[in-house]
C-alpha cells in the first residue's frame, strides 16, 4: 500500500489544467484535441438518454412542488452532464454518495424515482435501500458525505474488495472542514474515492467568488497530494471520460482523485428560493447557451448518432416516465406512526415501547371520537 508509486513525479503535475478539460464545445463541435479520449458512441447515446430522462424527471419534480405533492425540490437543471456523466461512469459494484441536489443522479443509477422523492414528499427519510442500490442516502449536512465515502472505500480496501466510492458535493461544501479532512484521509490511506465537485457557481445565494479565492477548486488537490482535474461540467462526454479514468485509477489502487466540474444551476436553489434576489437574468442566459443537453444532441446529430425519430422516441419515453411519476406521486401515502419508534435502535427500548403505546392509545381515542361524530 505505497500510494506514491503511481503519482506524478513532480508535485506541480498534481495541478489541474488552467482551463476546464472538454471534448465537445458549447456549440456541439468536437473540442480541440486534448488529453481526454472521446467515449464510445454507445456511451454517448446512453449519456444523452440519461440527460433527457433526467431533465424531464427534474422538471416533473419541480412541477410536483407547485401541486403540493413535494414539500421542496432542489433542481439540478443545467447540471445534467455532471449528474449523469459521473454516475454512468460507475461500475455495478461501486457506490454513489449523493447530496440533496442529486436526485437525478440517483435515478440515473437505477433507483425508483418515487423512492428517491420519498424524503422530499414529506414521507419517511430515505426511500430506498442504500445497500441494495449501492447509493447512500441523499445527504443534507454539507460535506459530511465525503467522509462516509472515504470510509466505505477504505473498508473495501481492507476487505480486499474492488469497490470505488464516488461522492458528489457542491462548490459551497468545499469550504466545510469535513471536505478537507476527507481529502486528507483519502490521500493518506490511498482510498479508492472519487470526489466530484459540481461547481454550479452558487451556494444558495453566495457566489463562488465569495466562497473561495483559489485559482480553481481543483487546485486544492495538490495540498493533499491528490491528482486533480478541472473539467467542463456541461460536457457530458468530458465528465464521463474524466470520472471513468478516476474510477479506473482508484480501482487499480492508484488512490483518490479530485474533480471539479464547472457548471451552473439554472433554477433557484430550491423552489422555495428566489434567485432573482442575488443574480441577474443575463448571467443565467449566458449559461443557457452552454446547455449540456442540446450540446450533446448537436454533437450526436452531427455525427449521425441521433436522428429526429430517435429523438422523438426518447422524448416520448421521457414524457411517459414523467406521467407515470406524476400518477404515482398523486397517490396519497399513509405513513405508519409506529415507524416513529421502530428504527431508533435495533431493538426497541422499554421507553420507546411505552411511548409508542401512548401514541397508539391517543390515536385510538381520536379515531373513536371521529367515529362518534359520524
Amino acid at each position, binding site marked *: 500500500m505505497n500510494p506514491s508509486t503511481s503519482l506524478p513525479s513532480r508535485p506541480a503535475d498534481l495541478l489541474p489544467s488552467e482551463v476546464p478539460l472538454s471534448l465537445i464545445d458549447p456549440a456541439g463541435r468536437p473540442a480541440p484535441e486534448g488529453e481526454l479520449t472521446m467515449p464510445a458512441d454507445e456511451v454517448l447515446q446512453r449519456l444523452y438518454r440519461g440527460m433527457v430522462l433526467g431533465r424531464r424527471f427534474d422538471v416533473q419534480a419541480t412541477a410536483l412542488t407547485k401541486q403540493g405533492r413535494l414539500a421542496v425540490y432542489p433542481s439540478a437543471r443545467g447540471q445534467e452532464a455532471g449528474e449523469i456523466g459521473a454516475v454512468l461512469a460507475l461500475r455495478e459494484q461501486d457506490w454513489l454518495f449523493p447530496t440533496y441536489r442529486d436526485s437525478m443522479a440517483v435515478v440515473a443509477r437505477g433507483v425508483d424515482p418515487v423512492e428517491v422523492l420519498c424524503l422530499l414528499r414529506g414521507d419517511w427519510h430515505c426511500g430506498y435501500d442504500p445497500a441494495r442500490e449501492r447509493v447512500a442516502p441523499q445527504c443534507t*449536512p454539507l460535506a459530511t458525505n465525503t467522509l462516509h465515502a472515504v470510509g466505505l472505500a477504505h473498508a473495501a480496501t481492507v476487505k480486499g474488495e474492488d469497490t470505488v466510492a464516488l461522492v458528489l458535493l457542491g462548490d459551497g461544501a468545499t469550504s466545510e472542514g469535513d471536505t478537507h479532512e476527507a481529502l486528507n484521509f483519502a490521500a493518506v490511506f490511498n482510498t479508492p474515492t472519487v470526489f466530484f465537485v459540481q461547481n454550479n457557481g452558487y451556494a444558495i445565494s*453566495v457566489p463562488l467568488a465569495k466562497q473561495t479565492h483559489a485559482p480553481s477548486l481543483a487546485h486544492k488537490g495538490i495540498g493533499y497530494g491528490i491528482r486533480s482535474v478541472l473539467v467542463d461540467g456541461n460536457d457530458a462526454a468530458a465528465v464521463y471520460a474524466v470520472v471513468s479514468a478516476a474510477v479506473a485509477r482508484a480501482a487499480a489502487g492508484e488512490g483518490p482523485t479530485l474533480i471539479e466540474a464547472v457548471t451552473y444551476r439554472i433554477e433557484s436553489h430550491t423552489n422555495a428560493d428566489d434567485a432573482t434576489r442575488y443574480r441577474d437574468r443575463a448571467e443565467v442566459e449566458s449559461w443557457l447557451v452552454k446547455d449540456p443537453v442540446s450540446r450533446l444532441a448537436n454533437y450526436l446529430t452531427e455525427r449521425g448518432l441521433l436522428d429526429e425519430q430517435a429523438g422523438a422516441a426518447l422524448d416520448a419515453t421521457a414524457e411517459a416516465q414523467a406521467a407515470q411519476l406524476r400518477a404515482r406521486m398523486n397517490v396519497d401515502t399513509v405513513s405508519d406512526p409506529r415507524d416513529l419508534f421502530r428504527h431508533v435502535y435495533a431493538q426497541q427500548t422499554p421507553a420507546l415501547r411505552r*411511548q409508542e403505546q401512548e401514541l397508539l392509545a*391517543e390515536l385510538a381515542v381520536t379515531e373513536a371520537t371521529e367515529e362518534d361524530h359520524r
Partner: protein
Amino acid sequence: MSTVAERLPELAAAPIPVTMAGALNQALADALATDERVLVFGEDVGTLGGVFRVTDGLATRFGENRVFDTPLAESAIVGTAIGMAMNGLRPVVEMQFDAFAYPAFEQITSHLAKLRNRTQGRVELPIVIRVPYGGGIGGVEHHCDSSEMYYAHTPGLRVVTPATPADAYTLLRQAIDCPDPVIFLEPKRRYWAKETTVLEPAGAGIDRAVIRRTGSDVTLISYGGALGTTLEAAEAAAEDGISAEVIDLRSLAPFDEDTVAAAVARTGRAIVVHEASRFCGYGAEVAAQLSERCFHYLEAPILRVAGFDIPYPPPNLESHHLPSVDRILDAIDRLQWPDAVNGTKAGR
C-alpha cells in the same frame, strides 16, 4: 421592494403589527444603527437577507463591511466571531438551521463558553449566535432539531428563546448588549406569527421568565415554539374549569427558578412542555429542580409533555411528535386532582 428594515423604524413608537421575523430584523437594524461594533454575518445573510429573511435589507443599509456573507463553514463563523470579539467587536452570527450549528460545537463549547473563565474575566465574548430551531414547519431531516439542551448544559453560555415578536425584539437587543455569549434560539414556526405591539429594547430582563397567563390550579411551563400550544391548552382547560397558569421561560440558561418556583408553590401542580425529546431534555432540569424545591407543595408529580425520544420525524408524521393541546390536557388530567378516584396523595 422596500425591506422590513426600511419600513419599520418610523413606526416603532406606536403599536404596529409585526411578525417575529420582522421584529428580529428590526432588532438587528437598531443594534447596527446604535452600536458600530455590531456586525452581522453568516451564510446567505447578506445579499439574500437570510433564508428566513431575518436579515433582509441590512447589507444594503449598513454596507458589506458590517453585514456580510461568509463561506460555508459554521465552525469558521463562530471561530472568527470569537477572534473579532477579542478585538472589540460584537458579532451577531446566524447558523442557518439548528442541525447546521453542530459543526461549530467545538468552538462553542471549548471556546465561546469558556474563554471568559479561562482568562479570569479578561477576555469577554459578547457574541450572539442566532439559531432558527425546532419543528412544526414541515421541514425535512436536519432542519427541525431542538438543540437547546446541548447549550443549556454548557456553563458559560446563555440560552434564550423568544415566543412572541415583542420578546424577539427585546431579547435580541438585550442579547446583543449582553457581555456574555448568547445562544439565541428562534422558534422557526413562530417566524410568521403576527402581533400588534411596540418594540422596546428594554423589558423583562434577559434572564427572566414571564407569566403569560395567570391561573391557580396548575402551572404550565413552556418556551419557544411550544408556548403557543401551551396557551391554547390553558384556554381549553379553562373551559373544563381548570385555571392554568402559563409561564414562558424565555431564558433557558440561566433558569429563572425563583419566578417558576413561586408559581408552582402557589398551584401545587406543574407540567413542562417542550418540543425537544423528553429524555435528558430541558424539562428534566425544570422537573428536578422544582421537585426538590417545591417538594412539600406538590400535590402531584411534575409531568413533562415533550417530543418522543426519537430523531425528529418527517413532515408527514411530525404532528404526532409535537406536544399537542390534547396531550397537555391529558397531562393535566393525570395531575391527581382531589376528586379523582385513584392516585391521589391521600390514596397512597
